[in-house]
């Protein structure tokens, strides 16, 4: 019996499964990644590109799948699942490292004095209840004095002295003081961290935002004198080959808008050029208390009638 055929077939099968390269492939099963560091074989690359790429890819996938089968598995309803190890490839951070926070006033003091930071337990032992209670918060130990049923009252206390209220006020004052110190620390950090340039930049940015924060996104706002155009805004032009009818209607719209403006200007000018010290429109408005000339005339007529009556 000649088994050489069978052996050869078996060997060929084994060959297809094993991948042999000059530099072994790097497998990162955690990311399901294979990296082939071997230089390109120029001859086969130029002879048949597709064939070469296919064979390289096949080798890579073969190695990856072989490594997957060597991983520990768990069995599930959908069949065995390989458990991937944590990835070994180091990926760069997406965001820069956070900047260190500026030290608070206490931290500065502690550093100067060489005071080590001690972490206090969040819980304290309550002898009476024989259990651990929170240092603060809901049913916290810092509220003991407010809830105890018997309190020592100093001899010189007022008649309406409420020990529970006094304790509570004291605690609230401590909270307020801490909050004040915290905000002072924040303010100090902000002042130290920002130069005048930064501040100018922030103000400019705020201004830019406010200018586009109207109902029309700043399009129909009245421009102030000496207001500079926004920086960093790209000019957008209509395409040169717009349809003539569209352009015509746009231009006509601009003209109709212009027609309204000069009217207002003209009326202003005429009142100026006539050299009148008295602004009639304004005078009527103030005399009629904003009701207009018609109301003023009506009022005048009724007064006149009364006057006549009085004379009689």
């Amino acid at each position, binding site marked *: 019996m000649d088994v050489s055929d069978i052996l050869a077939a078996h060997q060929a099968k084994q060959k297809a499964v094993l991948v042999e390269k000059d530099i072994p492939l790097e497998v990162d099963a955690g990311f399901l990644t294979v990296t082939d560091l071997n230089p390109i074989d120029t001859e086969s690359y130029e002879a048949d590109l597709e064939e070469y790429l296919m064979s390289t890819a096949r080798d890579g996938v073969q190695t990856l799948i072989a490594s997957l089968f060597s991983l520990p598995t768990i069995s599930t309803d959908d069949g065995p699942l390989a458990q991937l190890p944590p990835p070994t490839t180091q990926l760069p951070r997406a965001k820069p490292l956070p900047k260190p926070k500026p030290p608070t006033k206490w931290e500065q003091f502690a550093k100067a004095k060489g005071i080590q930071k001690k972490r206090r337990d969040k819980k304290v032992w309550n002898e009476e209840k024989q259990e651990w209670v929170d240092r603060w918060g809901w049913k916290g130990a810092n509220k003991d004095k407010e809830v105890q049923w018997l309190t020592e009252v100093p001899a010189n206390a007022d008649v309406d002295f409420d020990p529970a209220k006094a304790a509570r006020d004291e605690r609230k004052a401590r909270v307020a003081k801490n909050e004040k110190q915290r905000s002072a620390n924040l303010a100090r950090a902000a002042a130290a961290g920002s130069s005048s340039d930064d501040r100018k930049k922030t103000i400019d940015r705020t201004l830019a935002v406010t200018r586009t924060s109207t109902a029309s996104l700043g399009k129909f706002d009245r421009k102030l004198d000496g207001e500079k155009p926004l920086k960093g805004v790209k000019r957008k032009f209509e395409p040169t080959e717009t349809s003539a009818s569209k352009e*015509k209607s746009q231009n*006509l719209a601009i003209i109709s808008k212009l027609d309204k403006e000069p009217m207002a200007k003209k009326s202003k000018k005429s009142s100026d050029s006539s050299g009148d010290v008295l602004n009639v429109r304004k005078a009527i408005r103030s005399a009629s208390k904003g009701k207009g000339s018609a109301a003023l005339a009506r009022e005048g007529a009724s007064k006149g009638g009364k006057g006549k009556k009085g004379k009689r």
Partner: protein
Amino acid sequence: MRPLTEEESKTVFTKLANYIGKNLVHLIDRQDEPHCFRLQKDRVFYVSESSMRLAISVARPNLISLGTCFGKFTKSGKFKLHITALDYLAQYAKYKVWIKPNGEMPFLYGNHVLKAHLGRITEDTPEHQGVVVYSMNDTPLGFGVTARSTVDTRKLDPTAIIVFHQADVGEYLRDEETLF
């Protein structure tokens, strides 16, 4: 070459309206062929749509002129009318000034119009109003801005300026290099 922005259109139209008033609509809404305004190297051209479409294929540095040059934008964003716009201004002018033959040459050399040279003037022309200047035989010579209203001119002495010179046809010769 590009169309004017809204801001630019406003500037151009305000300037034109100073001379031709409501007739400005006839420039935009034309019966014969649609015309449009185009900006090329700070100059504003009034051009028919067909020639504008032909000019699209000309590269920007190679395009010298198209249609009728109406004027140019100064660096500070003001619009200055050129004498080339006279044809359209004369056609639609609202207020006109005719000057006597002895005043034609002084005006064509770039001087203001004096009262002595004034032949006729449109009634009720206001002060600082854009006017087109004609010779007595109705040939448009240029345009300017009135110094006084028609009523006020009556009291003035003959050497007083009536119309401030802005552009005249003499510029075709004098400013030949820079005009186009």
